[in-house]
């Protein structure tokens, strides 16, 4: 039987979570690691060390190391002993982006991913993406791959503005 953690420990891990969660994404600073769902958990182990679990968005995401270091730095600065663990399974999905995160992405000019990543069709699948600037549904995909692996490039046919779309995965 596993003993329930002492209340003060729970409280402490909640505070550590708050600190870690505020770390912004290095590529899209408008959202933080908690909004994106890449900070999976923050707990305090039996030796009093804060263990933060982080999951990469893409296998080759160059930002993942920067994100881990930033979370470690934020927790160290707050006086914690820290260990970062990278978890790869279950695989990250855009469904883990919070509602708050989706709103922030849109305000930043990035169209948030359409829901239900499981429905990605590899061939001839086309998703309807709305323009984050004017809301128009009249958009076309310019490039499957944008400035980072997680984004595609679109253009709005109504307001003529190009924009990034956060791809479903």
């Amino acid at each position, binding site marked *: 039987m596993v003993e329930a953690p002492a209340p003060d420990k729970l409280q402490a891990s909640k505070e550590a979570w708050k600190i870690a969660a505020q770390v912004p994404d290095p590529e899209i600073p408008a959202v933080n690691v908690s909004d994106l769902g890449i900070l999976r958990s923050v707990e305090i182990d039996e030796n009093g060390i804060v263990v933060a679990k982080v999951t990469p968005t893409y296998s080759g*995401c160059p930002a993942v190391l920067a994100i881990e270091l930033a979370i470690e730095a934020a927790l160290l600065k707050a006086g914690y002993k820290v260990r970062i663990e990278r978890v790869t399974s279950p695989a990250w999905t855009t469904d883990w982006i919070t509602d708050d995160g989706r709103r922030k992405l849109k305000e930043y000019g990035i169209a948030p991913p359409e829901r239900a990543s499981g429905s990605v069709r590899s061939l001839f699948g086309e998703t309807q993406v709305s323009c984050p600037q004017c809301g128009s549904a009249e958009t076309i995909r310019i490039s499957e791959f944008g400035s980072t692996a997680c984004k595609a490039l679109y253009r709005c046919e109504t307001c003529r503005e190009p924009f990034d779309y956060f791809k479903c995965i």
Partner: protein
Amino acid sequence: MAHDKVLFEILIRLADDHLVLGHRLSEWCGHAPMLEEDLSMPNMALDLIGQARSLYAYAGEIENRGRDEDAIAYLRTEPEYKNLLLVEKPNEDFAHTMLRQFYFAVFMEEFWKEAISSSDNTLAGIAGKAMKEIAYHIRHCGEWIIRLGDGTEESSRRMRAAVEVLHPYTDEMFDHDDVVAAAVSAEIIPDPLLLRPRWEQGVQTVFKAAKITMPNDYWALRGGRAGQHGEEMGFLLADLQYMQRTYPGMTW
């Protein structure tokens, strides 16, 4: 064959496929025909190299001789690389590059779909991520094959030429040897023979839209899985290994 030995060999084959193809794609960086493609090919290369890193790191753990991902990726000799000949083929023109990527991606998507229920949990975890990434590669390359195959006279000629050159290298993906047989029976990987009809169907769908005929009379070429490579591989490794060979043990 011992379980760990089989697993290590399978991981090395997969990792080498991904590293070598990722390296080939990265050669386009700064040379693509348009900006969008200059973004897309390095992005696909990043996916592949990221997947290769996970596979190499795990292979090093299984081997348990103190080699990390870099040591395995950079410090082996040519016969120790076990990648498919297909992935080391030079970029040539854009038709060759897109077709090579497409052939491989359609195979890997089917492979990963099954590997998510591998008896090996780590490989299953890698499969879960890679499967979703590869779907975008298929879509991207598939669209180009259709655009070029059913395009102008020149684009169509180039696409058909690429099919003629590269198709004979696809059989190696489905080859069975002792390692594959042992890995299939240990349920580490799916049986490549089961994947073949699905691969053919996926390729056929795009070829039909691209007005390309699937070759059926050709001499299959193989050897990479046994460490026998084409001349191009030496040049590729000279480039890939340059930093580690020149400054042994260097880190970023």
